[in-house]
């Protein structure tokens, strides 16, 4: 399976990574190479095998559904590139 330039552009957009048009052919080639390596998995008979969800058999831990933390907006915003009036600030979003 090989990836076309168009598909590479689509994947980059899905991943929200800007890729210049000039860089698309090389990206498509690289991704194709990696996917080709993964094709080996097709040799394996996986009939009737359940996909693994957790590597160590354990029941997901449960706890009371109560608030355990919070009330620290200053700490939450301390590392934001742009925070104003107690909120994260982003460019204007107009739909």
């Amino acid at each position, binding site marked *: 399976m090989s990836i076309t330039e168009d598909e590479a552009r689509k994947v980059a957009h899905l991943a929200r990574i800007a890729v210049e048009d000039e860089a698309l052919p090389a990206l498509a080639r*690289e991704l194709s190479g990696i996917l080709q390596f*993964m094709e080996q998995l097709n040799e394996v008979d996986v009939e009737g095998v359940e996909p693994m969800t957790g590597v160590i058999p354990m029941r997901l831990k449960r706890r009371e559904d109560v608030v355990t933390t919070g009330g620290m907006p200053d700490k939450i915003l301390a*590392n934001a590139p742009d925070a104003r009036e107690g909120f994260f600030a982003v460019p204007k979003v107009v739909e």
Partner: protein
Amino acid sequence: MSDLNTLTIADARDALSGGEVTSVELTEACLGAIGASGPLNAFVHGTPEKAMEMARAADARIRAGDAVAMTGIPVGIKDVFCVKGVPSQAASRILEGFTPEYESTVTQNLWNAGAVMLGKLNMDEFAMGSTNEASCYGRAVNPWKAADGQELTPGGSSGGSAAAVAADLCLGATGTDTGGSIRQPAAFTGTVGLRPTYGRVSRWGVIAYASSLDQAGPMTKTVRDAAIMLGAMASVDPQDSTSADLPVPDYESLLTGDIRGKKIGIPREYRIDGMPDDIAALWDKGADMLRNAGAEIVDISLPHTKYALPAYYVIAPAEASSNLARYDGVRYGRRARLGHGDGIVEMYEKTRAEGFGPEVQRRIMIGTYVLSAGFYDAYYNRARKVRALIKRDFDTAYADGIDAILAPTTPSAAFALGAMDNSDPVAMYLQDVFTVTLNLAGLPGISVPVGQDKQGLPLGLQLIGRPFEEGELLNQALVLERSAGFVAKPQRWW
């Protein structure tokens, strides 16, 4: 006592409790060594003031007769661990300026155990890499040099940790191992690296790469030190839902050196085509050492070994693409400078394009692809099924009475920095051929320096243990360490 920074954790602990040395003296010795280690580029954020403050507190604690497992022991912390108030950026530009408001469980456990923080250590960006060349801080350099004087990679992703321990800049260091990132650098630098069972050590506050595979562990000069440090790092943590509900044993007390009657498996599928003679000979030698100590050596088969690498390179990028979606330029780290009229999508795309390095971008995109509609079953689900088969291979071996598995850690000794520059990404992925299997199966593994290649570079063997049997594993590793008697140190050139 001279060169205090060259002490092992165990010896330093004994010297501290015997009053022969203070933590301040030990810490000053390490800070001095770090100050003179610029060419290794191992420490990337020093915390000397914090170190001295912690050392003084440790000395007070020792004087008060209140010392615990690692009181006064100076250690380095891989940059992937969040340490409150200290830059923690997983060697990525996208986390530039990020100083966590909270502490990872592992580092908190270490501070509770009395350890002293020297600073943050270099690594591959987001722990993705096998050479420590993919770092926003620049490459870390192996203290060992090639016979022709060429500078070598310390391995990756915990390359800074391995280089720092091998060069005696610290007594021990933390690492993380998603596909071999503790064991491969340990093998490349003649040090000991232990990756615990998945769930033994909390992932809380460890910057995530692939959550079903990531596990933190100690990188040390000796097996005994790994036992001491694992005991300090491990805990049952309500903050990590995958943390195992099992008490942490006293690993050091399990180091008896007696492995008589243990069955050690030699997996035939690991004898890959083109394995260098040095590595094959080392492997045989390691098996002899264990046999001479009374273990039974058994040939075993792990039939799906060959498919571990491709399965890993589907699953890990898939998880990475999801984990790294959080770096959006909004909540922490870097945001790209935006052009006039740029909206929120441009903000995401530009921020991530300039914040992530090429290998991280590649893995995010591969992960995005294998999870995308139409390909999810063909790649991601298939890889997860193959993963189940790989785990079944190990389960079968252990059910047949095998206690541990012996294999090489790496397909070669450390290679030159830059050697991978022009090769395709898959060539680098092949570095992980012996290490990724146990990550996929969630098992513990330890790399022990056992010999040297023709050039005199260190070579490691790894033992793979039963789940949550780190004590047994460390004991087997101790036997390997004692029989090998590896004492070589790199010639100081930096």
